[in-house]
């Protein structure tokens, strides 16, 4: 095991704290000289690639575990359609391995640079949530390391309480060491994508309600700067996995080697970059994004184009300058679509230009006690942390969201209060009781858990 003191933040680069970062394999952690030697009175938490926006993978004054993969990090059982993957493996590495063999992950978020362990701990969702649900819905078995240093496998059948406390449980029930989950067969690495401009929020809602059932993946990029008759104007993107026949018909050149997946790595934005995303720039970007989209377009897109466009710019969050930024994501039930419209209008009126705001319809809940997705509309927006007045706007939005039975996503959170989480997650007390049962001495701890009084 190697360890060093390091300043850690989440992907939003806010609220740094210093922890002892320990790199270890699951075998090392469960040995006699393992977990007990690194856990002091500030506890420990696992950290993957640090893509949570706030502080769930930080543990000021304590230990942060970076789990190293074992000797066989990825095993694909093609007959069963199940992948057995070490928790520290990223979706990027996994996709490079399984796509050429004709398989795809059941859920991918807007970046490939998340680990499988983090995918379970945050019960992540993607463009396919309305059809496929969240990541936890596809997991069939997990290996875990517990507070007492022991390891074993769990399933929804053997340990139902622990299972549903761990899926979406932000790593606070134990370290997820490896995960077995269903993968989906694909003929190609491409998608048949339908893209269209939608001029107004109400039309967007209608369009998504009627067309979601025809597409496995769908999301809308919404312009939160536009007001009045342009309120909520959007670019709606919907797609399905392309078959070889689709490629032959639409882009025959790609049909030759339909499963070649070897995306390039792109250069990072250098550190110390000034904030280049002031309001006028964001306004112009949003305008351009909308205008460059044809009214209606039918085409073929790659995995990166369709799912991970931001992965093309490494460390893009540095564009927000030294203050960093926060992402605000919430869900409101379907019947509260008026509240969603009110919120979109509030943000646009306030003029806090957000870019890359995303609207999506969620499908069913996974069953995780702290899982975020539930049936309804979810909106995600980025906001620079250095701008005054944002906190009061977000507090106002919190009230609107909670007032209609909505809630906030813990993996994105860097602003919520204990009350906001209590109100949004009615099963929090149940989760706490299960957590206490498995970790009575409070070994697992994170900055977020302290901030939100989860422990």
């Amino acid at each position, binding site marked *: 095991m190697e360890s060093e*003191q390091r*300043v850690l933040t989440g992907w*939003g680069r*806010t*609220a*740094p*704290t*210093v*922890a002892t970062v320990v790199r270890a394999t699951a075998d090392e952690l469960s040995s006699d000289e393992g977990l007990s030697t690194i856990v002091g009175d*500030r506890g420990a938490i696992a950290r993957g690639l640090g893509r949570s926006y*706030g*502080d769930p993978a930080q*543990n*000021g*004054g*304590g230990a942060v575990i970076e789990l190293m993969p074992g000797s066989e990090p990825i095993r694909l059982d093609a007959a069963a359609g199940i992948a057995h993957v070490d928790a520290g493996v990223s979706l990027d590495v996994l996709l490079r391995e399984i796509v050429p063999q004709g398989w795809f992950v059941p859920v991918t978020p807007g970046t490939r640079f998340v680990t499988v362990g983090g995918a379970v701990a945050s019960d992540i969702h993607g463009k396919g949530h309305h059809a496929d649900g969240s990541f936890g819905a596809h997991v069939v078995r997990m290996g875990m390391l517990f507070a007492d240093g022991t390891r074993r496998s769990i399933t929804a059948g053997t340990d139902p309480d622990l299972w549903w406390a761990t899926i979406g449980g932000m790593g606070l029930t134990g370290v997820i060491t490896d995960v077995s989950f269903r993968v989906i067969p694909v003929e190609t690495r491409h998608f048949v994508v339908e893209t269209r401009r939608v001029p107004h929020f109400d039309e967007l809602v209608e369009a998504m309600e009627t067309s979601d059932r025809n597409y496995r993946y769908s999301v809308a990029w919404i312009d939160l700067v536009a007001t009045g008759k342009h309120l909520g104007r959007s670019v709606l993107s919907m797609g399905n996995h392309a078959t070889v026949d689709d490629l032959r018909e639409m882009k025959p050149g790609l049909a030759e080697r339909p499963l070649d997946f070897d995306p390039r790595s792109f250069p990072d934005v250098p550190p110390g970059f000034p904030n280049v995303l002031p309001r006028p720039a964001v306004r112009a970007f949003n305008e351009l994004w909308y205008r460059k989209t044809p009214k209606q377009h039918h085409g073929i897109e790659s995995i990166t184009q369709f799912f991970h466009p931001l992965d093309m710019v490494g460390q893009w969050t540095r564009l927000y300058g030294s*203050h*960093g*930024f*926060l992402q605000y994501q919430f869900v409101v039930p379907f019947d509260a679509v008026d509240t969603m419209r009110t919120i979109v209008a509030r943000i646009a009126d306030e003029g806090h230009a957000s870019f890359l705001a995303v609207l999506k319809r969620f499908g069913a809940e996974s069953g995780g006690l702290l899982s975020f997705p539930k049936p309804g509309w979810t909106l995600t927006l980025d906001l620079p*942390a*250095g701008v005054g007045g*944002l*906190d009061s706007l977000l*507090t106002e939005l919190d009230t609107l969201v909670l007032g209609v039975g909505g809630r906030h996503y813990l993996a994105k959170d*860097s*602003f919520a*209060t*204990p*009350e906001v989480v209590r109100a949004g997650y009615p099963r929090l007390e149940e989760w706490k009781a299960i957590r206490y049962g498995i970790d009575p001495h409070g070994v697992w701890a994170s*900055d*977020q858990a*302290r*901030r939100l009084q989860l422990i």
Partner: protein
Amino acid sequence: MMNAFEQPQTILVLGGRSEIAHAIVTELASPALTTVVLAHRGGDVVTIDGLPDGVTVHCVAFDAIDHHTHEEFVAKVVAEHGDLDVVVQAFGQLGGDDVNTDPVAASELVEVNVVGAVSSGLAVAARLRAQGHGVLVVLSSVAGVRTRPSNFVYGATKAGQDAFATGLGHALVGSGARVMTVRPGFVRSAMTEGMDEAPFACDPSDVAEAVASGLRRRKSVVWAPGMLRGVFTVLRVLPGFLWRKLDR
């Protein structure tokens, strides 16, 4: 824990009666703030008006000259209230008329303003280091930047406290804990009531705004008002006879 806007959940004030500290607490208050601990001699109840509903104010006994109790004091506050996000070191005295001539009065002032600051500052720093985050805000003064003939003993204590604070800040780099040294000019408050106002005088709320903005920008030193930084760049190197002339 601080949130993404660097808004604290817990604030400890050493010198809980300080008007400037109250203004700082008010300025830092947000829906994130839950706990304010006001620590002062006796620990009697002190209120701060206008705090949001969710904030609980606790008053506890703390004596700056009881050096041997400072570590235990910090441990007790942490045991009861958890991590400390912002600690404001606000206690301090101006000294009486005899402080520039009476050795006993002067040493008593040093005892509070310097020895107390060092001892409580180290106790707090140890805790912030252990939790890997947190800011110690030290209320220094421009009086310590260049000491004036009319209050050189007070100035000397502030210079000592200031040098300790900035040095501690350097020593803490890499630990996650930070120190922000605050150098206000003349502040209109109970402490300065009846005194002639110096140029660039300001109110406690001005100091509080400077502190809040300094925290957001993760500064190590802030001046209040901000222009005093430039003013003292000049005053520091002014020939002695001119400096004495200014002190009237």
